[in-house]
């Protein structure tokens, strides 16, 4: 059986490692990217089923990468934005940029699994 593939785009290894392990333990296949460049390369090489995206990367800030991932590719997978910004404006901009959901840092592993699981229930 093919495991759903999740691309984790996060430059903080303290977060990416535990997100990776939590998702792997729950039966997902994961891939990691620490920069915008790595994320685009990963998506180009193998389209994931879901992208978890930190919007503050060393080579990309704000929502540019989210827009790039969702607006330039018709077959784009859903994007969940991981951020500590809880304000309505950021969330509205995120949805306009094509995000499906927000995961507000700090989040628990349970919140992570619920948020990711819901996306696959929709699919």
């Amino acid at each position: 059986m093919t495991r759903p593939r999740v691309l984790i785009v996060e430059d903080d290894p303290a977060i990416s490692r535990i997100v990776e392990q939590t998702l792997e333990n729950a039966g997902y296949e994961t891939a990691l990217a620490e920069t915008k460049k790595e994320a685009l390369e990963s998506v180009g090489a193998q389209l994931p089923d879901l992208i978890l995206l930190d919007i503050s990367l060393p080579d990309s800030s704000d929502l540019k990468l989210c827009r790039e991932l969702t607006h330039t590719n018709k077959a784009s997978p859903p994007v969940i934005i991981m951020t500590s910004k809880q304000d309505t404006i950021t969330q509205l901009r995120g949805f306009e940029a094509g995000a499906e959901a927000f995961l507000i840092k700090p989040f628990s592993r349970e919140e992570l699994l619920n948020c990711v699981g819901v996306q696959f229930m929709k699919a």
Partner: protein
Amino acid sequence: MIKRSAHKEDLEMLDDDLIADFLHGCKLNLTAAYARARVLRTEGARGESGESLKKFAHRLAGSAGIYGYSSVGVVALRLENLMRVLVRRRHPVSAHSMTKILSLLDTISKTLGFAPGGPS
């Protein structure tokens, strides 16, 4: 449907390794954070040390909770907010702000099981 792994004990062991790595990273970062905090009084918060301290606090605020250290995340967020204000100001860092920064770092250190004043 997503299936959970049956090897729960193995997974918990892996979790312990991850937590140990997280704590080791915190120890290194806290040592650096104390060193940066101590030069703020002379250097001011607008320099590299202020930005680094703000980034350290931001990352810890975002990651501590998922490792089970929610209270550390809350204190780190306070430190991040304080650093945001100080980095924006042109004034030198006051003695009061310095005490506050070091006190927040001590709280983080103690909660993670390290000695206040910087992990040794």
